[in-house]
């Protein structure tokens, strides 16, 4: 059951996108998300989708895996679409019955929103598919480190995130192991009412919590034993360097942004 969570799952590879500097990937994803909200019509949105498709193809992450990241938000997509269809009342009326009025404007907006949400999710998934979680937190820390006045807290937060991310697979593993052990003792976790199933989780969660606390203590001791004392005077083992690749990527997103702005001006806005 835990294996269905794909957001934040790293998909190892050696593509151009994988090799980019994590800081640049973070910046680009951020820009992409902003620009996608700048899009005002299907033309500019089309440019964004095209750019995304190019990036997905370059990353060599199988399309099937990418599509899986959309599954968890299917409900949100449907909900947004329905709301827009019913509440937007511009354009020509298509359907009128008592209190239900559907217009072309509503349909267009709904489609626009669906594409926008999917592009958002796919773009951020692409970041996490092609960048390992530790590199992401490392990248965030380095991007924020110029903020000298909060340097220490940036480091602390980044360290906490790294540790949390590092232990997610361990916890999932542990959860599965304990579940199996209790199932072997006849625990029934799959059938029954919601309350029954919640109760059936107690034999799994109690050992899970106890192990987690034990782990946290051990890790803290181990870090102290190796003289960890926060950001003060800490140097880095791995140096991040921007390469030509990152320059190209930046150029690419600039061109795309320019295209979006131009198309926004050239064609009528639909939202």
């Amino acid at each position, binding site marked *: 059951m835990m294996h269905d969570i794909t957001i934040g799952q790293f998909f190892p590879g050696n593509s151009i996108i994988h090799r980019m500097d994590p800081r640049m990937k973070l910046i680009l994803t951020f820009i992409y998300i902003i620009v996608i909200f700048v899009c005002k019509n299907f033309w500019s949105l089309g440019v964004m989708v095209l750019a995304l498709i190019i990036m997905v193809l370059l990353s060599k992450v199988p399309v099937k895996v990418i599509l899986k990241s959309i599954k968890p938000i299917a409900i949100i997509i449907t909900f947004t679409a329905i709301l827009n269809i019913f509440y937007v009342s511009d354009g020509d009326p298509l359907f009128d019955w008592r209190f239900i009025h559907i217009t072309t404007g509503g349909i267009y907006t709904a489609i626009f929103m669906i594409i926008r949400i999917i592009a958002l999710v796919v773009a951020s998934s692409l970041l996490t598919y092609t960048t390992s979680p530790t590199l992401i937190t490392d990248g965030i820390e380095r991007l924020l480190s110029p903020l000298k006045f909060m340097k220490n807290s940036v480091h602390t937060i980044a360290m906490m995130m790294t540790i949390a991310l590092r232990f997610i697979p361990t916890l999932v593993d542990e959860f599965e192991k304990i579940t*199996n052990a*209790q199932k*072997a*003792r*006849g625990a029934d976790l799959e059938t029954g009412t919601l309350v029954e199933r919640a109760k059936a989780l107690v*034999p799994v969660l109690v050992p899970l919590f*106890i192990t987690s606390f034990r782990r946290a203590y051990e890790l803290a001791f181990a870090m102290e034993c190796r003289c960890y004392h926060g950001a003060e005077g800490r140097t880095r083992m791995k140096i991040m360097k921007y390469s030509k690749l990152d320059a190209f990527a930046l150029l690419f997103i600039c061109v795309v942004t320019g295209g979006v702005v131009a198309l926004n001006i050239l064609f009528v806005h639909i939202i």
Partner: protein
Amino acid sequence: MSILRTDNLTHKYSVGTPFEVTALDSVSLDIEEGELVAVIGHTGSGKSTLIQHFNGLLKPSEGKVYVDGKDIWESKQSLREARFKVGLCFQYPEYQLFEETVYKDIAFGPRNMGLSDDEIDARVRRAAEFTGVTDEMLEKSPFDLSGGEKRRVAIAGVMAMEPKILILDEPTSGLDPKGRDTILELIRDYRERTGSTVMIVSHSMEDVADIATKVLVVNSSKIMSYDTVPNTYKRAAELLEVGLDVPSVTKIFMELHDRGLPVRTDIYTVEQGIEEINKLRLEGVNL
């Protein structure tokens, strides 16, 4: 009739991702009732994967698993039956304790089986006695026990279900020699008293050679051999080749054999070694 049977059992993890591994590859196996089988193999050879198929925790990617002659994946009913017929005790079982008292924790399995309160009580006390869990310990919180005590409580929790087949994954890992001997002894006693089939997974054959009737050697997702203890040791050279350790006595006799002495190489206990040397002396071989 065989009590456990697998038919071309194949198991793959993470199918359809770049992490796909074949942990078991067409394993066909037949285990008779009443045996005490030692399952040995290198780290990552597939031992744990294999045993988790016997009570249906893992579903075969291909092939069939039969418990007591019944295909366990035939229906929900047969799967549930297999869960209770096969008692599986995982590695480091002490991390699965969760109840307020040791008594309640041991009773967890029997309670899930839907037994009456009297029967549950009888089984808990029997299992506790078996594993040397005292009445005083029964009332304690499982988290207040020592590591070795926790281990015994966890094993008692599986024994209390009185399974026809008891399977333990590395029951002795992380224990000192005395704790190890205690656990192995109580497993042997359990089998002798109940006549159940027992499987013990282990890294080291030396540990389990004394008590096992059969040895199942797993090597890179396949069964390398399934035979009696002496017959397995006859293939000591092969075992060493795949990275498994054999007892020091066996190594000594292999070395003697290589140097041209007419000795047997299927020796695995010191007593057998002494006997063999004495025999050579009687035969007048110059040592």
